[in-house]
């Protein structure tokens, strides 16, 4: 009854239970944090705007992104994945979300940043609907925990209207 095997088994089971419980509590403790991030984005320039040979519109932008996401970090935060998406509606699609730039923030020290960049991913429409089109720039973030539940949120920022003509 009290053999070595039984004792080892009981110890292992107990250890795993405690570990699982601690992981759950740590994950739940994230709910106590109520973050207040801020962000600003400016479209500085339209580098070029054209119709591709296959008929889809493509535009290249220069962007200025500044954000302070430090309040997202808790002791259970491994990293924050942040991306800027252009969101717009066309006659064909209810919703188009095109990621323009993204980044991984590994620690709280890097969570206050300022970046001047062209769009990292190609801004291509499904079709030729971008002339004179209004779109919203939205900064999304996904918090990746050390363990437990992942969370996400966003800030919708000022809209922008693309020009009526290719250039």
């Amino acid at each position: 009854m009290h053999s070595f095997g039984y004792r080892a088994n009981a110890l292992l089971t107990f250890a795993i239970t405690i570990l699982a419980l601690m992981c759950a509590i740590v994950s739940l403790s994230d709910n106590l944090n109520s973050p207040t991030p801020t962000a600003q984005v400016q479209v500085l320039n339209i580098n070029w705007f054209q119709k591709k040979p296959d008929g889809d519109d493509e535009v290249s932008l220069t962007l200025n992104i500044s954000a302070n996401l430090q309040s997202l970090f808790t002791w259970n935060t491994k990293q924050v994945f942040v991306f800027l998406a252009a969101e717009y509606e066309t006659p064909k699609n209810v919703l188009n979300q095109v990621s323009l730039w993204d980044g991984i923030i590994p620690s709280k020290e890097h969570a206050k940043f300022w970046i001047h960049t062209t769009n990292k991913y190609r801004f291509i429409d499904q079709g030729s609907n971008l002339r004179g089109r209004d779109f919203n720039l939205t900064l999304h973030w996904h918090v990746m925990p050390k363990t437990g539940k992942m969370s996400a949120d966003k800030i919708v920022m000022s809209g922008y209207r693309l020009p009526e003509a290719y250039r």
Partner: protein
Amino acid sequence: MGWISDQIDSIKSLQFRQVITQIVSLGMIVTSALIIWKGLMCITGSESPVVVVLSGSMEPGFKRGDILFLHMSKEPIRAGEIVVFNVDGREIPIVHRVIKVHERQDTGEVEVLTKGDNNFGDDRLLYAHGQLWLQRHHIMGRAVGFLPYVGWVTIIMTEKPIIKYILIGALGLLVITSKE
């Protein structure tokens, strides 16, 4: 001859009821594991509620051997979500992030493009030949929760099957030989 009769005696000394009890308890373990798995399938709505990350394409977020909990709800897929998808002609599902979403006005169908955080380019090279977008039916679920390291157990067992057999053998022997 003494050795053989000893063996026969020891087999005879195994009590019938005890053997049955052990078989039943073994069956209980297997069926309860099955119940938990199928129950998770019902709750999460995903055909595979838990997946193990096999590649480093989502590092440093997800490393090889981490476990992801999936959920498949009716809610539409949006950019930034981490989805698990199957590509025609590939057996192993892939865990990557959605970077583009186009949702149709008339049918409500979505077309999405994915990318691994640690990969340089998007996933069009991984998709089936000529496939530009993922549709709803390719997607098995979105990742909602995360547990590090635990998946190493399955990775080791699939890559070194001998360890699996040793483990199963040892456990079986333990169940058969344990009294009480």
